[in-house]
Every structure is written in structure tokens, then in C-alpha cells.
């Protein structure tokens, strides 16, 4: 066996700070250029905005230094950059609407939500010292998650906007509970699956090379399918339904490593979707619009025409390769240019080049999350980080895929970019959780002391062995212990920290 050289793990806070500066400048420059592009003047609050945003981001950076010094240094800057770009575009659409004589000030509200979301993320990092604590709330999460999903169906509380019943109105605020729901359900799935993974993975017959699960183990999967389909049917929300189901199937696959689950899951969903498309007019209309968007008959159909989708495509096409530049396009011509269609707005003003850069930011974020999942040692953490990273990527796929006509258009928000409080809060909590888990993943094993401690003169201290089998082989950063029982570590080295 080769000798593994122990090496010092860099906490990465310096790198994070170095990345935060350009990330902040990106958002600030975009904001300033928007003002210059539309009105020819800098936005009045550009200094306040810049200072405030920097204070929030650097504040979160300081919290990380204090509470999670080994957290992944790339996640926070990427999220800040996306948030800043989103704010600038929301401000740009505001200006566009004002120029057309309609008062609109979503940017200020989004700035408020950004502040709340970043404070909340800091709060999560301060309060939640160890992500494994969340596992205790597995079934609470299930109840809360399901409740959040059905909340919009409650008469008087739920509100139907643009044909989808995914909003609740409460004390003057409207929220999309599904945004928080995805996060809560990820906690439930992680807790449930880490406990039941063996039964799900190993029991059952093998047919055509697929390891099939036992009928009784299919229960939760069928339940998830039923809930997703009822979201689709009752709330008319194809996107949320697809998001939840995709999340569940992905996490099930992570837990069981059984391709059969993916095949069954996709089969069930496609079956349900086809059934819904043939049974329900509004779903069928979405498919029509998707397949024949440019058809004049579909375009002019009211309600349920493809005008909005085609408007977004026109915007994207208008941007071309290099975009019109901040403030120089007409994103305000597309309905919901600051929320559901913000990707089309960005595609118009930043061009294909800018859009690809934004997609790469998401990809980096998701892959950093998945890297965290690979690095962390406990099964719950792996599932949670993997699920959260996937849900961000998958939501992007559904939204951007809908706007670029890869899949039918649905009404989901683009994480960090789109206008909307619930979305911003949920996604910043996801960032906080990923940072928390990555801190655990990247923290060097405490059982190895490198070099002599100050004051000693002789040989290095003997390696401490906390009773596990890994005593002699120092673990490389991120390299998991194949035999490590996830539950063991709660009482194990974690206590030594």
C-alpha cells in the first residue's frame, strides 16, 4: 500500500474573499450600467446599493470564518454573483416599465428580500452547528413539506395566478410555498432514505437485469408520485410537480444505487404526464404551445396561446451572440420579464455569451454541491447535499429548458435571479446548508496532528485513535471512508471538535 502523504487542507477563506470581490463588482457594475444604459445616469442609490450588498456578502463571509472556516470557497461568490445579476435585471425591467408609463419597483423589494435571505443564511450557519441535527426532524419535515405543497389548495389562503395555484397570500405577502417545500422535502427524503436504503436497494426480484424493489417498498415512491401528480392536476403546476418528482427519484437513486428506481420513476412520471396531457385541457394546451409555438393559430389562441413563450424567444433571438448590452434591449416587451422570464431578459441584453456564462455559474454551483456530497462522510449529509445541489440544477433545467423550448414551459423561478421572496429565501438557505455540509466535508480529520505542536522539541505526537479502523491511514481531504457508518460519526470524532 502506497504511503499517503498527509497535507494541509486550506480552509479557503482567502480564496473566497478574492472571489467575492469580482462577484460583487459584477452585480454592482451591472446595476450601474443598467442605469447608464436606460437613463444615461447612474442609479441614484448606486453607492448605497454597493455598500449594502458588500456589507451583507462580507458579513456572511465573516460568519463563515467564524462558524464554518472550511466551507467551500466557491459557493458563496457564485450565489452572490447570480443574485447581483438578477437584481440588476429586475431593476432594468423596472426602468423599462417606468419608461412605458407603468410604475414598477420590484428591484427595491428584491433588495429587501436579498437582505433578509442573506441574514437568514447567516442565521442558519450560526444556529445549525452540524447538519446531522436536521436528521432528527425527518418526519417533522415530511409533515411540513406535504403541508407546504397543499397549502395553496386551502380556500382563502391559496391564490391562482396565471392559471397555476401555487401561491398563498398571507398578511399582504404572496409566497410560493413550494419553494420552501423543496428544501424541507429534501431534508425528509435524506432522512428517510438513509434509514431505509438497504431494504430499498437489496430486496426484490431481478427482471431483465433490473433489480426490482419489493412491492411494499414501492410505497413511498408511489406516494411521491401521487403527490406530484396531484400537484400537477390540482395546482396546475407542471414545473413544481416535475421538480419534486425529479428530486425524489434522484435522491432515491443516490441512496440505493439502483438504476431500476430511475427507470420506474421516469416511467411513472411520463405515464402520469401523458395521462394528464390527454385528460386535462390546460396541460394539453401547454404541450401544444411547446410543440407548435410559432404556429399563428397557437400564437393567437386566447387563452393559452404561445405569445409569452414566443415573446421570450424573440427576446433571446434579439440578443443574438453578444446581446444588446445592459439597458439597450427591450426585455420589458415580454410578460413576467423580471420573474419567470428573467432568463429571456438576460439572454436579450447579455446575449448567448452572457447566458452561457450564467448557466456555467449554475453548473459550478451544482457541481460544488455534489462535490460536497462526495466529500462528506455521513450518509445523511451525502443525500442532503446531493439532493439540494441537484434541485438547484434541475430547477434551472426546467426553467431555462422551458424558455428555450427544450421542454414545455412551466412556471418556476430561476434560482437567485428571478424576482420573488420565497424563492430567494429558499435558495439562500440551500446555499447555507451546502456551506455547512461542505465545512464538514473539507475539514481535515481531527485525528491527525501535523508536525510538532509549539513548545515540543522531540518526535511528533502519536496518532490518536478514536477507536475506529481508520487509525493508521490518514484520510485525504474529501476521500470518504467506504465502511463508515453514518450514524457512528455523531458520537465519534465529531465530539472531539
Amino acid at each position, binding site marked *: 500500500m502506497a504511503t499517503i502523504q498527509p497535507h494541509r487542507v486550506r480552509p479557503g477563506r482567502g480564496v473566497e474573499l478574492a472571489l467575492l470581490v469580482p462577484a460583487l463588482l459584477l452585480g454592482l457594475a451591472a446595476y450601474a450600467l443598467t442605469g447608464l444604459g436606460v437613463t444615461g445616469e447612474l442609479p441614484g442609490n448606486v453607492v448605497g446599493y454597493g455598500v449594502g450588498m458588500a456589507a451583507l456578502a462580507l458579513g456572511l463571509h465573516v460568519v463563515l470564518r467564524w462558524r464554518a472556516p472550511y466551507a467551500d470557497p466557491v459557493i458563496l461568490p457564485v450565489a452572490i454573483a447570480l443574485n447581483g445579476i438578477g437584481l440588476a435585471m429586475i431593476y432594468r425591467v423596472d426602468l423599462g416599465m417606468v419608461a412605458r408609463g407603468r410604475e414598477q419597483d420590484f428591484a427595491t423589494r428584491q433588495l429587501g428580500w436579498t437582505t433578509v435571505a442573506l441574514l437568514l443564511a447567516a442565521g442558519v450557519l450560526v444556529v445549525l452547528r452540524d447538519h446531522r441535527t436536521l436528521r432528527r426532524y425527518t418526519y417533522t419535515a415530511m409533515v411540513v413539506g406535504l403541508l407546504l405543497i397543499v397549502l395553496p389548495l386551502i380556500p382563502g389562503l391559496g391564490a391562482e395566478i396565471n392559471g397555476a395555484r401555487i401561491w398563498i397570500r398571507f398578511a399582504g405577502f404572496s409566497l410560493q410555498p413550494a419553494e420552501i417545500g423543496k428544501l424541507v422535502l429534501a431534508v425528509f427524503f435524506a432522512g428517510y432514505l438513509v434509514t431505509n436504503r438497504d431494504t430499498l436497494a437489496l430486496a426484490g426480484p431481478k427482471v431483465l437485469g433490473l433489480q426490482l424493489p419489493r412491492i411494499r417498498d414501492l410505497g413511498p415512491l408511489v406516494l411521491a408520485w401521487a403527490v406530484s401528480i396531484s400537484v400537477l392536476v390540482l395546482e396546475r403546476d407542471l414545473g413544481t410537480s416535475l421538480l419534486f418528482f425529479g428530486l425524489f427519484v*434522484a435522491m432515491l*437513486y*443516490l*441512496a440505493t*444505487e439502483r438504476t431500476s428506481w430511475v427507470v420506474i420513476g421516469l416511467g411513472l412520471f411520463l405515464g402520469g404526464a401523458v395521462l394528464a396531457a390527454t385528460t386535462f385541457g390546460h396541460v394539453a394546451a401547454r404541450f401544444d404551445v411547446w410543440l407548435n409555438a*410559432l404556429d399563428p393559430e397557437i*400564437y393567437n389562441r386566447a387563452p393559452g396561446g404561445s405569445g409569452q413563450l*414566443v415573446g421570450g*424567444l*424573440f*427576446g*433571446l*433571438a*434579439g*440578443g*443574438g*451572440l*453578444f446581446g*444588446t448590452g445592459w439597458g439597450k*434591449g*427591450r426585455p420589458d*416587451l415580454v410578460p413576467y420579464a423580471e420573474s419567470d422570464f428573467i432568463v429571456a431578459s438576460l*439572454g436579450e441584453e447579455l*446575449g*448567448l455569451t452572457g*447566458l*452561457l456564462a450564467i*448557466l*456555467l455559474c*449554475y*453548473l459550478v454551483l*451544482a*457541481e460544488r454541491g*455534489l*462535490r460536497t*456530497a*462526495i466529500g462528506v462522510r455521513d*450518509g445523511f449529509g*451525502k*443525500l442532503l447535499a*446531493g439532493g439540494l*445541489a*441537484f434541485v438547484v*440544477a*434541475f430547477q*434551472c*433545467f426546467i426553467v*431555462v*429548458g422551458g424558455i*428555450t*423550448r*427544450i421542454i414545455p414551459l412551466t412556471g418556476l423561478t430561476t434560482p437567485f435571479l428571478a424576482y420573488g421572496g420565497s424563492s430567494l429565501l429558499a435558495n439562500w438557505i440551500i446555499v447555507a446548508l451546502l456551506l455547512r455540509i461542505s465545512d464538514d466535508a473539507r475539514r481535515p480529520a481531527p485525528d491527525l496532528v501535523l508536525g510538532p505542536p509549539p513548545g515540543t522539541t522531540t518526535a511528533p505526537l502519536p496518532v490518536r485513535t478514536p477507536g475506529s479502523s481508520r487509525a493508521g491511514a490518514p484520510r485525504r481531504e474529501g476521500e*470518504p471512508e467506504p465502511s463508515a457508518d453514518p450514524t457512528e460519526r455523531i458520537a465519534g470524532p465529531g465530539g472531539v471538535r
Partner: protein
Amino acid sequence: MNTPLRRLATVVVGMFVVLMGGATWVQFVQADKLNNDGRNVRTLYREFGRARGPIVVAGEAIASSAPVDDAFKYQRSYANGELYAPVTGFYSIVHRGTMLEQAENDVLNGQADSLFLSRLQDLITGKQPQGSSIELTINPAAQQAAWDALGDQRGAVVALDPSTGAILALVSKPSFDPNQLATHDSAAANAAYQALLAAEGNPLENKAIQGPTYPPGSTFKLITAAAALESGRATPESVLTAPDELALPQTSATVKNYGGSSCGSGGQTTLADALRVSCNTAFAQLGLDLGADALREQADKFGFDNDEQYVPMKVAPSRFPDEVNAPNTAFSALGQYSVTATPLEMAMVSAAIANEGELMEPYLVQTVRTADLDVVREADPSRMSQAVSPTTAAALRDMMVGVVENGSGKAAQISGVQVAGKTGTAQTGREDESPHAWFTSFAPADAPRVAVAVVVENGGAVGNEATGGKVAAPVAKAVIEAVLGQ
């Protein structure tokens, strides 16, 4: 759990590759189609928001854009709008564009593929993108002369440089003022447009290249004569049968000469004399002898039946009918029956004869320049066809000189300049309408510098008494003088 995590990471990469592909598909592959979609108002806003390039004639802008303080940012205006309307067309927020404004739109608005480098430069230097300017081949003196000479008559004039195909004048009357349509007040633009649609003489029609194509009448005899000479069966001195009245086969119809006169003596005349006095019976018999196919073949060599001609506006094809029986062949040889032609086409016939039988591609745009005056495109005269052999061309030229010196086209005589021409008086096929008066010509006959075709609808000011020689020839003369006088 790391293996499925790695696979999931691959799936995530795959999802983003698909998204990037989708974005590229929309923003790059499909972008042109989407940008040109009629439902895309963005295109309109963007086009109007850009400094559109000017259209220039001899150093003066006849169409230009100036910044204004409204949603469309630039106002298009036309200097001497009526005179140049058949060339520039108009550019309107309501009705888009016509003529050059439409045909060269992507150059004028700076979005042509050929301007990619200059756009890239603007992108890097941050300069406001500007459309390119278009310099025309139009000779302003010739254009003005044609306009003045036509006066209040309905009709069109086209003048060409026979050796290159450059269009020196292109006039259509009645005309309109494109400024009325270019206004940003869409209600006013719409009202002006509707008024023009309803107006007498259809001013929006470009009678020189697109309008109703006219029966070319006796000017078509040039083509019949060319076919006869090319076939080798005739020379200018060949003696043709020329009765006062020619009975047509398979029918009781007859062909008579204009005004019932006789040509030649004893029912015979030479080809040259037949052309000189525009003898109908002689040419009808010649047409019958040659056959419809020979006539069509010769007409096509001169540019008839060309469905893909652009100058760069699309030119309405001139026609020689597909299926012609014997009696109609006789009428076709006289430029009647279903034979139709644009004034541009008849100018091309003269130009080809002037250019030793070589027909040049007509064009209107001489140079395209970016806002930085870099030349993007320069006209490159190209040959369309060899319409007739140089020998035939020389024979036709001498015969056409005869027409002006001592025949039906005396009104085109210019002292000191030998003019070659051919008159035409075309029946419209309607009893209550006066015939169209035609004249096609070139000069000087020995070293041609300009070829001109004129059509005056329904005899113009003279009405029923009109002939091509009386009404159209003086207009051509004025244009020739304007070109040669410089």
C-alpha cells in the same frame, strides 16, 4: 454512495449541455428567423432606433435619417421625395418598406452579414452602430429630365448605361411623397397610405420595373427583326411581303398597318424600311415565317421570361407567351397579343443592341459604404447574355438610326448626335382606351453612352392621336440630351 453521486454529477453536466445547446439553437441558429418574424415588434423598435444609412445620388442624400426625440429615435426623410420615390421607396413604421428601403434594408440598418466586421468593431469600440450608405448609379440630370419631360402624363422612363448596365434614370409617374409615409404618427402614415392606394394612376406602383407590364407594341419589332437576322434568313436588305392587309391563317382576322396605310410599293418592302416605318404586315408575315419558338428564344436572350431579376428590387418578368397558335404568332411578332414588357426590359433591348449584342445585368447600387466610409460592396458589371451577334447588333443599330433619321421616330432627333430608336404604339386590348406610346433608343449610335426606354400610358396628353413617335420619343430625347450634355 459516491458512485451514484458521480453519475448524478455527469447527469447534471449533461442537463446543462442540453440547456446550452438550446440557448445556442434559439440565439444563434434560429435567431435570424425569429428576428425577421412579422410578429416580433422588437425588430421594428430596434431598426428604427438605429441610425439608418443614407441613400446617395451623386453625393447628395436623397434619403437620410436624423435623430428625433421619440420612441423610434430616428426620423427618415426624403429630399426631392417624389422624384426619387420609385428608387428609394418608403420606410414606414406602419407599412415597413418598399423598393431600395426594403431590398437593401439589412445594409441600410447595418445588420447585413457583409457588415459583420464593422459591427464587431463597433462592439469593441463601444460606438453606436450605424447603417451603411448606398450610392446609386442614378444620374440626377437624366432623372430630372425624364421627370420634367413626362410632365403630367402617366408612364415611366428607364435609362441605362449600355456598356455596364448601370441604371441612370428610373422614373415612374404619378409618384408620391415618401415623407408622408415615413411619419412616426401611425394614424397619419396610415391615412396617407390609404389615400395613395385609392389615388388615380396608382402612384405606389413602380411602373418602370414592377407596375402593370405593358404590351410593348412595335418596339418588339426589334426582337422580331433580331430573330430574323440571327436566323440567317434575312438581311436588312431582304425583301419582305408587305400587303396593305395580311390575312392570317386559321382565322378570318387580318393585320393592317397603322392608320390603314401601305408600306413599300407593290406590297413589298425591305426589312430596314419595314422597321423604319414600322410596317405591321411585313413583321406579322416575318413572325409567321420565323415561328413563335424562334421569337420566344430571341426575346428570352434579351431578358424576357426572367423570373429572378433584381436591381436589387425584384423586377416583374416581361413575358412572351408559352403557347401561341399561328394567328397569335403574327400579333406577338408585333408586340401585341399576350406579349408584355416593362420599360426596363425595353431599355435592356436597346442597350444590348448598343453594346454589340451583349446584354449587361442592370443595377442601381454603385457602392455600399460603412459609416466610416469603408467600401463594403462595389458594383461589378456582369453580362446577362449575348442577345445577338455583333453583326446583327450593327445591322439593327443602322436600322434604328433610320427610324429616327427618316422614319417614325423623327421626334428624337438631336442635332449633332446620331440617335438610334424604335417607336411603339401598343393597343391595350380595350376599345375605350388610347394606346400606350413607346420609344426605345440609344445614342450616340456609333459610341453609345445611354439607352432609354419610355412608356406613356394611354397616349398621355395626346390621347387617341398618340403614337410612340409623337409622345414618347421627345421624352427619350430629353433624357439623352441630359446624359450627353454633361
